[in-house]
């Protein structure tokens, strides 16, 4: 139901293929920088984090800025990067929180479902600044992208396992 024309007509430009290319590129980069030889748990953990971030990032980049959640994710990455470099660009987060406050004050229409919508807002990146209607829309697309991500990663793992 969420099939956009892009994904149907041209497989080379589908979300999946874009994600795959980006992600594999990121993985090779990580492997080049950080060989497996590092056995310490911290390094392992770091590596795991890097891979996870790479995966999410490549997915977000594949979606570009077409979705609110991808935009929020990308801005989060950029702010993190700039935070590493010393600059504080947490303006966006504060904006999000202020918007969150105002929106939550007005969203008393569905009294019983407020808790769940809030939880959903936390899960979906950039969900604080969305009304319920858009939130559901973004959630649907986010779920679709997540499933794609998981499928691709699993396939990679299986492939690597098989190709020993």
């Amino acid at each position, binding site marked *: 139901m969420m099939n956009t024309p892009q994904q149907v007509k041209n497989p080379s430009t589908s979300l999946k293929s874009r994600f795959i290319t980006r992600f594999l590129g990121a993985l090779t980069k990580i492997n080049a920088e950080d060989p497996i030889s590092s056995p310490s748990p911290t390094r392992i953990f770091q590596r795991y984090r890097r891979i996870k971030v790479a995966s999410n990032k490549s997915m977000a980049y594949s979606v570009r800025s077409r979705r609110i959640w991808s935009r929020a994710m990308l801005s989060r990455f950029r702010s993190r990067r700039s935070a590493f470099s010393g600059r504080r660009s947490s303006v966006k987060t504060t904006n999000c929180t202020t918007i969150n406050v105002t929106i939550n004050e007005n969203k008393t229409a569905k009294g019983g479902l407020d808790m769940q919508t809030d939880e959903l807002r936390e899960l979906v990146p950039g969900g604080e600044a969305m009304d319920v209607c858009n939130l559901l829309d973004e959630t649907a697309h986010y779920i679709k992208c997540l499933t794609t991500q998981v499928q691709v990663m699993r396939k990679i793992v299986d492939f690597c396992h098989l190709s*020993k």
Partner: protein
Amino acid sequence: MHTELLSIFSKSKPQSKKKKKEKLVPSSSISFIIKAKKKTLIMQPCSREMQAMNSLLNPTQQIPLQDLQINGNRHHHQQIHVPSSSQFQYPTPTSTTHHDDSFLEQILSSTTSFPWSDETGPPNPEDNNNAGFNYDEMVLASKLRQHQINGGAAGNPFAAMKMMLMMQQQQQQQQMMLAGRPTVASAAAGGGITTNHQGGEGSMQALYNVFGDGSLHGTMQAKSFVGANSATEMTQSQGSGPTAGEAVTAPEKPKQRVRARRGQATDPHSIAERLRRVRIAERMKALQELVPNANKTDKASMLDEIIDYVKFLQLQVKVLSMSRLGGAAAVAPLVSEGGGDCIQTSANGGSHPRNSNGDQTPSANDRLTMTEHQVAKLMEEDMGSAMQYLQEKGLCLMPISLATAISSATSRSRNPMINHENPTNGSHLLIQSSGGDGPSSPSMSVLTVQSATMGNGGLEGGAASVSKP
């Protein structure tokens, strides 16, 4: 009955205008007094009006309404109640202190004074009607007085006035009135009766407006006998009325609002609300298709499912990224997540499972076994702690295939004790090779690899380092 009255209307058009002014005063004055105190009464056609009045008044006042049947008894009443009219005048000064009663009496006195002039006149059809009407009025008034004298409730005057108004309007309908007048009167009466016990002033003023407008024309004729329509007419007529008229329109307005909602909602807020709800329902349907186990009909449970599924997917991404730590592009094979089948305890068995820091006295096998058990236990709980345990032991994990390859390669040249480590969290093989024969020892199940920090060279593919502690 309807047709009869309608025919009367059609005839009475030219003559009605004369009587309009004459009739306005008493009717309006009476309308001032009328308060519908008790239950609402839907306007019925004339005969039914009487019955309704009976039903209304009987439980309240037990006024014998048979003598109020005017249609055939006008003259009879005239004769009977003429003396009572004089009686009527008498108690006026002795009215009770009740505000409404005094007001009522004033009105009644004013109204009853009026027909007496007609009474003496020759019985014209109009005058006769007038007289009859007034006599009916007087009938009501007499009844009212009687009840007042008998110490009736305060509600009596109003009900009695209601009755009077009914009589009056009936007379008006039968007389030559303006085409719209009787309907207005009936509408007014109906409205007056249908209004619940509002402030008397409000309803009365409303009724007065109805009469005073004169804007109610033949469009209302056909509807005059239907109570609901009269109610709407009342509201329509009072559109320009004072705010006091809201007292009358208040009961009708909820009806109108409900009607509007059921049909087409013209209110922009409700339209927007409905649109929003439809959109949200669409989105929920789309989500239902994406999320497995989406057979829930309840919106809340559906949202719960969605939340759980999103959490699950995010967790899967995490786990998969952990399992890929071996490097997708690297040569070293990765181990799948089937951790349980990869770890096999050696046949020696764990005699001292908790002896982690243990003594060096046990043989290497035992120690490795113990370590192996310990690591297995830790791995079940938490990967980080397992890794830390291994590290402090100077061990690491490695996939079996690689370990066997390395052990076979190194066993020829090195010590039988080979410790390999490969940080693959997926299965966390703890492999130990005992003896020099690497690949030819099927019992070999655990191969622990020395940490690469030992700084041994000769790494094969950078996967493992072999050294002896």
